[in-house]
């Protein structure tokens, strides 16, 4: 089959690889009909996440048709149309029982590597480095899905691939980020990053009762989508206005009740701070560039919640712990516990409360994946979200 493979920093190629086969009784094989490129993939593409190997199949947002199931899978059969959550979860361990699926204790075969970096190992993730399992990903024609009796959710025929595909990751991710804000009547939420995750965090904050949501980014086309499609009440282009002054103005000097970091470890920062992080990351004294996270902490009102959906991989520097302690901030984070949200969010899509496909700007064949990575990474050609059809 054809698969999108990581071949080194900023190099992906679509190459021929063997078809996946069932390896364990709870596996299923899915023929992929739609798959997307995620901001998380960009962290791999740009070489920020350790533990990649040349030839790794990328991709963790995918859906398709079940073509084969292992001997222990009773809940699925060939022909079922399913969306697959990006974390791999056994459904039996105590984390799974608590619905903390991205912390599954049993799904990372390379747990020992993750323990070295993070203390304990989280769940395995499709196509997301050997630290998180070394699983072949879903930007391919077929994928093997472990614990297929727990993760994949069947989707009704009357909804299109594009309407349901994002149940695999970014819709639950935006939703969980907003849910972490514990939104109260009258709340104003500020969202750093108007990428696909930021857009769905904005829309989800409204679903969860926010009064006003403010989107922050520097790309005008993304800010426009935030206002016109996600429904942001206001947007701030931090390159054109002073971020702090604008937030003060928009919130009557109170500051946002909660802030969401939908940027992650490749935060862009102009001036001295940006240079500082770039030097430090290049010298390996810091692995991530937490520009947006620092701002999300500093700008959050006292006693508020900083919800971190953006991915960080290693160690940060100049982290404003003083602000967190002295102003009683709550930090919430995590890879999304997707399984927890697929059913209720599918219901919301079916009821017409939201159509997450509004983020899609580019539709391509699998063969065009390298181009997709290129424009998504460089924010060119108005690119917000790329969907590939194998």
């Amino acid at each position, binding site marked *: 089959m054809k698969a999108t493979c990581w071949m080194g920093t900023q190099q992906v190629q679509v190459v021929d*690889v063997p078809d996946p086969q069932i390896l364990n009784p709870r596996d299923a094989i899915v023929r992929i009909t739609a798959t997307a490129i995620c901001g998380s993939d960009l962290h791999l593409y740009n070489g920020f996440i350790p533990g990649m190997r040349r030839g790794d199949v990328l991709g963790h947002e995918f859906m398709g048709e079940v073509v084969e199931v292992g001997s222990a899978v009773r809940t699925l059969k060939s022909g079922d149309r399913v969306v697959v959550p990006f974390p791999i979860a056994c459904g039996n361990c105590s984390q799974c029982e608590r619905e903390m699926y991205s912390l599954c204790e049993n799904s990372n075969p390379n*747990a020992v590597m993750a323990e070295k970096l993070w203390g304990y190992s989280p769940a395995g993730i499709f196509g997301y480095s050997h630290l998180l*399992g*070394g699983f072949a990903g879903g930007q391919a024609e077929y994928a093997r899905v472990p614990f297929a009796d727990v993760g994949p959710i069947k989707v009704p025929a009357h909804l299109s691939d594009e309407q349901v595909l994002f149940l695999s990751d970014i819709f639950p991710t935006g939703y969980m980020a907003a849910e972490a804000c514990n939104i109260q009547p009258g709340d104003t939420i500020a969202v750093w990053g108007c990428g696909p995750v930021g857009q769905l965090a904005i829309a989800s904050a409204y679903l969860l009762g926010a009064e006003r949501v403010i989107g922050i980014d520097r790309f005008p086309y993304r800010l426009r989508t935030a206002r016109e499609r996600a429904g942001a009440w206001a947007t701030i282009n931090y390159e054109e206005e002073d971020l702090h002054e604008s937030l003060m103005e928009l919130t009557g000097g109170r500051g946002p009740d909660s802030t969401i970091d939908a940027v992650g470890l490749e935060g862009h920062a102009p001036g001295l701070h940006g240079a500082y992080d770039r030097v430090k990351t290049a010298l390996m004294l810091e692995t991530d560039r937490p520009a947006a996270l620092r701002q999300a902490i500093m700008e959050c009102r006292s006693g508020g919640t900083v919800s971190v959906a953006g991915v960080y991989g290693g160690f940060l520097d100049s982290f404003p712990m003083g602000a967190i302690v002295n102003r009683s901030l709550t930090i919430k984070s995590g890879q999304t516990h997707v399984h927890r949200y697929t059913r209720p969010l599918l219901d919301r899509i079916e009821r017409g409360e939201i159509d997450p496909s509004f983020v899609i700007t580019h539709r391509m064949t699998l063969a065009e994946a390298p181009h997709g990575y290129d424009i998504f990474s460089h924010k060119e050609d108005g690119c917000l979200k790329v969907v590939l059809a194998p």
Partner: protein
Amino acid sequence: MNSRAYPRDRQVEALARGLGWFSLALGAAELLAPERVAAVIGVRPQRRTLNLLRAYGAREIAAGLAIFAAPRAAAPLWSRVAGDAVDTATLLGWSADADSDRQRLGVATAAVAGVGVLDLVCARQLQDQAAGAPPVSRRVHVERVTTLNRSVEDVYRYWADFRNFPRFMRHVESVELLGGNRSHWRVSAPAGMTVQWDAEIVEQRDSELIAWRTLPNADVEHSGTVRFTPAPGARGTEVRVALDFAPPAGRLGRSIAWLFRKDPDQQLHEDLRRFKQLVESGEIPLSEGFMLWRPGQPVANPEDVRSLAGVRS
């Protein structure tokens, strides 16, 4: 209750591994993106400079791998110390060039010096440990614990049937019940060797404890205990395993002992993880890219994946 100190030799080993990761990361950057490294440290990216950076990158990676191959050995750390000296000399040389950015070079030199101190400390401590370590003929005691989200009865029942062991113990090929309290074990050792022993259960209390020891003429003489206790607040079952290996006898015994001693702690940790995976989820998860040994890409023959991961079908 039981408190467990974090042994000092483990701390040093952790530091060594940290430095190993650092070597790998820095090496990768120098090897793959020497232009970027040059920009950061403030030197002009001439071809000669870039080639030098690439060579240093290869050296870093070699040092990193050497550390991971033997995280308790001092030699790889001493070679890092030597490397730090070379780096410092090179950086100082560059700062004499007219077209270098002195400020950036200053920062880079300070960083190298800082890491150099860590390397030195780590190398010294590892050396001291090696000097003070008892001879190879020491007894080895290993203990590990894990918690399973299952009742004590379930967990006990699975463990008490020794025939299950080959499913989760990477090196155990087979266990045969001989009747009475006895069983026969075949365990794979490096270089295609197999070692064997007979074991007998010396104590067994339902849903509580099993203790065993090897009978005379075992290839690897040892004894072990496993204890099952309910975790507080319905958090399942704690499983504690303790193993004691006797001082090895004979040539075979010594090479085997060397094998088990290499990292018996880590091996037991991994085996217990697999026990948990198997009992909780019914299978041991397999990925295409086990560790970093092959890419995360489907294989033509699934047995390749199983044998890398040491999972018997």
